[in-house]
């Protein structure tokens, strides 16, 4: 008994030492996060409460309540982010499934084509869509010469064009984690399901799909969060009518004398994003959403 207790104490000491070591190793990273993330965000909060005359004031928040345009801009931002995420799931999930069922070498080739757009700058891809989709662009030219439609169709300088561009840019962020999760699902599970009498459709929905969910959540979350901060694509493809929060932040810096007018927008976006994550986490386990576990 005595030996066991000594042993236990020794183990505990080891554990403490180990934890201290780990903390020591991660302290540069923690410090970095503190300096580049926590402090600036804290500063952002502080500045958002500074009025035009330099004293404490709620005017930056009052303005957002007074003018209806701010509520509409936030609505557009979340609408665009939800729609982009939804479309990415609709397109990306089947594609990831298809790739995951291919033999390794072919799958890798497909993944490279998925990743290819990553090697081109976002700005270039956005302008490429503008050139393709505009009134006298390639898509309209071809469609008209093939007789698909008679008059040029308006596909850009509106929400449609903006969504096409954003979905294209965001797709790899969804496909990669989903593909990773699908690849990790053993094929034996599907075999077992059909052995037990499930048809392919039932086996997919009851076995494969639930197992792929952590990847889907991780990908959707990443796409959604990244969409909230989009600037270039809506500015170029939205025709000045799709106004997202990041664009309004820039106009507010140019329009008002103080940084607070812009900071307050950032704070509201941040708080709303956290609120959505919190609500989502009530329904889904957070570790599942971030892909860290769930098995």
């Amino acid at each position, binding site marked *: 008994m005595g030996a066991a207790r000594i042993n236990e104490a020794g183990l505990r000491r080891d554990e403490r030492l180990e934890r201290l070591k780990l903390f020591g190793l991660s302290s540069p990273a923690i410090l970095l996060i503190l300096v580049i993330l926590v402090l600036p965000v804290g500063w952002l909060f502080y500045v958002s409460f500074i009025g035009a005359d330099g004293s404490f004031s709620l005017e930056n928040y009052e303005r957002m309540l007074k*003018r*209806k*345009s701010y509520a*509409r801009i936030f609505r557009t931002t979340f609408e665009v982010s939800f729609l982009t995420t939804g479309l990415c799931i609709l397109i990306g999930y089947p594609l990831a499934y298809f790739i995951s069922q291919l033999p390794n070498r072919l799958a890798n080739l497909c993944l490279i084509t998925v990743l290819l757009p990553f090697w081109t700058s976002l700005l270039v891809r956005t302008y490429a869509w503008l050139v393709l989709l505009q*009134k006298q662009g390639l898509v309209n030219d071809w469609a008209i010469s093939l007789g698909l439609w008679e008059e040029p169709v308006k596909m850009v*300088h509106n929400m449609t064009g903006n969504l096409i561009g954003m979905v294209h840019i965001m797709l790899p962020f969804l496909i990669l984690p989903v593909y990773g999760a699908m690849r990790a699902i053993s094929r034996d599970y599907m075999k077992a399901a059909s052995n037990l009498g499930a048809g392919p459709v039932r086996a997919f929905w009851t076995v494969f799909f639930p197992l792929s969910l952590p990847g889907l959540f991780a990908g959707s979350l990443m796409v959604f969060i990244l969409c909230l901060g989009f600037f270039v694509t809506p*500015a170029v493809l939205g*025709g000045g009518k799709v106004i997202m929060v990041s664009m309004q932040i820039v106009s507010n*810096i140019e329009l008002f*004398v103080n940084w607070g007018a812009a900071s307050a927008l950032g704070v509201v976006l941040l708080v709303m994003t956290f609120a959505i994550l919190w609500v989502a986490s009530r329904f889904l386990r957070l570790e599942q959403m971030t892909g860290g576990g769930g098995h």
Partner: protein
Amino acid sequence: MKTTTILTLMSTVAAAQAFAADQTVTIASWGGSYQEAQSKALFEPAAATTGIEVKQETYGGMSDVRLQVSSGQVTLDIVASGSGSAARAAAEGLLEPLDYGVIDVSTFYPGLYTDHCVGGDVFSTVYAWNTDTYGENGPQSWADFFDVEKFPGSRAYRGTVAGALEGALMADGVPMEEVYSVLDSEEGIERAIDKIRELKPHISVFWTSGAQHAQLMKDGEVDMTTGWNGRFDNAAADGAKVAYSFNQALLDYDCFAIPKGAPNKDTAMAFLAEISKPEYQDDLPKYITYGPTNKAAYDTGEITAEVAAGLPSSPANAALQLPVSLEWYAKWETIAAEMYQEMLTE
């Protein structure tokens, strides 16, 4: 006696030159072909004449000046700015008052210099149209631009409030000379915005940069747009089917200002006096189709009659236009911009 006078004079001249030799000014402008034109026509020749050494930078506009002045770290001596943002910066106390005892503006167009900013070039906000769509009979007034029955087709319009309301009011029947008095209230601003609201279903694009509205015309994406005359000239030179009119256009100007607490304030003042002279301003149109702010630049013979006819500030063209009111922008721009935003997001 005479020799002494001459000697004194000579030494004064020598001293002045020695004095000038260690003088430098740092100038910030918008870069690109615009700053290149300024550099070739104004900065380099003036530096050669005065012996003042010029350092050029590009900057992001008055928000940079605001940052420098508020942090007490002013490095810029002269900044090129749009007239409207300069007026707002002056109202905020970010600019030094200019000394018009040093800078000679006696031959300037009235209204192209203020207490804090002296005009450098004149440009116009015009309406432009696709010559393939409308042939020779394009719109000749703002009323035409807003008339979708007479001129069917898609439009582009400015995405921010600057230069957006004046034309709308004229289209709504307000005579040119009454535009700013009508706009001098929230009701007047709303009236102009309502006119744009009416046109909005036909506005495919709200543009945010000069490059963008030029490209829209080049690509034939819209049939009409508002914009800056120089950009359309460049686009037309590149083969775009675009024409514009100066009738009822908005006559505006870019100007030079000295940030508050500029390190070489006095040298900057002397340098501004030099580049405001007609013999520099008359070279600017060779590099960009923007006109001089100094009337006397038309008398030196450098600007040919043909070039002058195409410049916004030529007497004939200027007479057709509404000069932009800086007082109005200083007083109303922030409020009007928020109201404009309401219309954009609807």
